[in-house]
């Protein structure tokens, strides 16, 4: 079983991930002089959640050919579910000191908690919602779309419309999710102070574990028999259908799993950065996720994670060094990857290695 899940690249990636996950908290918490500053811990944690989001997208795009331009919506919904729990945890420590209502509701003169906020004071209920809400949206959306055989570019465009509509909706104050400002000013999670280094390191470890678990789940699905059908759908949808497979059911399954994974990523992201706002729903964000996957290497899972981390890292560095250049760089990435790196960085590196080792099989596959 384990041998099926962990091939060479997965093994290598997980080992590096393990080392980083152990070393970073030690460097931050227990070594005098803090060789790893606290902001780096939060930053790396954020990268991990992006990587998990990229893996989720790779699962549907790389293996099933569904190019979702709305995966940011599932990520943001997970983030909002977590944010709602964190808002409820603030209790009387808010600016207005209302024990039940979050500050923005007091500000808007709301009388009582809307029904959809009920239950979010419980951690486990919220954690369930982190997966259920994105999953349910994906189920309803996918059920309609896949059953009526909306495919290809049309599907991409309506997923984009979905996240755009959600963004507009969450910007409205009347929705009850804090409007423009979103949810912020969180205090603690399960009693741990979110400002403390230890909590941040804990969240970082949680993000790393979630990423590893996400990779394992995705790998489990793609190496199973079901995974073979998914690839068949990707490469020849009509033929698969004529062979007797219920294509829409396979697509729906993997779409929902992927949305839940994105929701989990969002849920860890929110306490790490301390805010979730409607900007996360913007179509531009969702398209950027696609470039993470494409840059790393579509259909490789590990590559998607690497791509997310590479892009996020270069964004951090470039926006602080040459803020003007960042969009040029990102735009160039989109163009170069699609034109000259069809298999992404991982594909190029592996091909290079194969040529170096004169491995005839790989060279033949990638002329």
């Amino acid at each position, binding site marked *: 079983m384990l041998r099926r899940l962990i091939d060479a690249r997965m093994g290598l990636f997980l080992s590096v991930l393990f080392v980083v996950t152990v070393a970073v908290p030690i460097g931050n918490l227990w070594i005098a002089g803090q060789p790893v500053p606290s902001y780096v811990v939060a930053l790396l944690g954020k990268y991990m959640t992006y990587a998990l989001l990229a893996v989720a997208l790779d699962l549907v795009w790389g293996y099933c050919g569904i*190019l979702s331009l709305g995966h940011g919506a599932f990520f943001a919904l997970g983030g909002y579910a977590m944010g709602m729990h964190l808002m409820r945890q603030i209790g009387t420590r808010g600016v207005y000191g209302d024990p039940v209502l979050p500050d923005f509701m007091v500000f808007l003169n709301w009388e009582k908690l809307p029904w959809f906020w009920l239950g979010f004071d419980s951690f486990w209920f919220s954690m369930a919602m982190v997966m259920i809400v994105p999953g349910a949206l994906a189920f309803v959306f996918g059920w309609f779309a896949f059953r009526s055989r909306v495919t290809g570019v049309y599907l991409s465009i309506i997923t984009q419309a979905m996240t755009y509509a959600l963004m507009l909706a969450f910007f409205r104050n009347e929705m009850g999710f804090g409007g423009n400002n979103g949810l912020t000013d969180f205090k603690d999670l399960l009693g741990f102070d979110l400002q403390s280094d230890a909590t941040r390191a804990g969240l970082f470890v949680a993000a790393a574990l979630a990423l590893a678990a996400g990779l394992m789940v995705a790998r489990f699905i793609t190496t199973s028999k079901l995974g073979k059908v998914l690839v068949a759908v990707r490469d020849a949808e009509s033929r698969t259908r004529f062979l007797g497979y219920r294509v829409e059911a396979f697509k729906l399954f993997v779409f929902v799993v992927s949305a839940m994974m994105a929701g989990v990523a969002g849920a860890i992201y929110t306490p790490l950065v301390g805010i979730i706002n409607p900007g996360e729903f913007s179509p531009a964000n969702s398209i950027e996720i696609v470039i993470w996957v494409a840059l790393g290497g579509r259909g490789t899972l590990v590559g998607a994670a690497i791509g997310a981390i590479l892009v996020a890292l270069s964004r951090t560095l470039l926006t602080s060094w040459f803020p003007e250049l960042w969009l040029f760089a*990102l735009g160039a990435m989109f163009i170069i990857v699609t034109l000259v790196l069809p298999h992404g960085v991982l594909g190029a590196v592996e091909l290079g290695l194969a040529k170096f080792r004169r491995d005839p099989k790989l060279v033949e596959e990638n002329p």
Partner: protein
Amino acid sequence: MQANQNATGRRKGRSATVSRALPRAWLATALLFAAAMLLVVAPAWSQSRAFEALVNTLPEGSYSDRAAVVAAIAATGDPRALGVLESLTEGQLFKQKTGGRIVALSGVGDPSRMIDAITGEDIGPYNKGAVKKIKINNGLRRDIRSATGVLSLSSADPQARLKAAQAAFASGDPAQLEALDTAMSAESDGEVAAALAEARAVAILNSQRPTADKLAAIAVLGARGDRDAQGVLAPLRDDPELSSPVRDALETIEQRQRLWGMAQNVWYGLSLGSVLLLAAIGLAITFGVMGVINMAHGELVMLGAYTTFAVQEVIRTSAPALFDWSLLIAAPLAFVVAGGVGIAIERGVVRHLYGRPLETLLATWGISLMLQQAVRSIFGPNNREVGNPDWMSGAFEIGAMTVTWNRLWILVFALIVFAGLLTLLKRTAMGLRMRAVTQNRPMAAEMGINTGRVDALTFGLGAGIGGLAGVALSQIDNVSPNLGQSYIVDSFMVVVFGGAGNLWGALAGAFTLGVANKFLEPFAGAVLAKILVLVFIILFIQKRPRGLFALRGRAVEA
């Protein structure tokens, strides 16, 4: 004369409440004297003398005394009264320290010269030390406004009379009734007479006139039928005597308002639809005809808008006289700029990605990011000011709805572009080649068509039309580097809804979505209306995955 007596009576009442000190007593005497003059001596001569006396008392006393004097000045109906009172409102009326003459700044011609307020004689340059300003406050300004309103009812300029009648309508002061009656009997201009009748109706409703007069007034207002009339009538709804006719009139007005409101919504919808059509029609070429997803289309629109900005800048600095032509100059330039960039995109990137729509989508998105940043680096991140030429600004009214010229011209422009494009595709050799390449590329190549060149030109055509859209949008939207982003989702919705590959689909899609959006807005609010439309399209795509006007045949599956 009756009007003068009325004004005098009011003046007495006011001065009585403030008779506190000696100067005020003196003033009251002066006023009484003036009033006596008015009543006793022969009208023309006495009017002019009374006017002069009143103007000379202006600097005396407190603000409320001055208000009484102002009313009296207006009541003289002297032709010079308007000028004096306007100078007073502007704070440009002074008393000379020596001689005590009342002087004013000489208006528009040379504001630094002084004239005698009464005789109009030129006194010499304005010398701040030699004069004392006659002070004014906001309460007094209000009094002057209503007083001058009545005065301008007898102005020679029909526009001024119309404005005065409208002001009288808004104030609804029953004290103006006599003035309105006088003005109506002398009025020759039909439009002004109607406005006067309406103003008179409002004044009657506010007065103590008998019910029969008020019923006639209600009929007049009911016929006017706009929101202002509604505002006047609504408080009278529960008046015991007038209740039923007022309710009837209100009902008629509401009915009329509903109809016009619907017409206005249709107009707004068509206007939004024309904007959507302009933004989407170029996309309909690249996406619809070529099957290429051009995510940078919004940025081509933005380039068109910035071209307009650049053209206007050049015109402002070197040839201001051409400003009214700026849009006509900018349109072909925008077409060339955006079209050129489009051809460069096609030859540089898109050409290598035919048959891989998802990759095209990503690559063009990358191009859109770079174009955005390039414009941001060159023109700065802030909104740029693009002016409206004269023929694009302003509005006119049809019944109870307002139509702005810029929206109307944009609708016309969108339809012209649409018709031009349709002709190009259906009636020219170029269009024939484009359609041939779309429908069967290898066969078209066999027939000797240079497919690569046709691809580039088709893409450039779509891009150039995006640039034209930018010229139009620069007139109604902020010209900023984010301009394109705000249209890209909407224009894709139009193309997908209308059905890719069909220009008529884009037309129907744009106007349907525009009108639907504007009809939802009153019930749901602007944002929710947009969300509802998006949800509707998402559901619609499930039902008809290829849009309203679907292409049929082999090309569909390719």
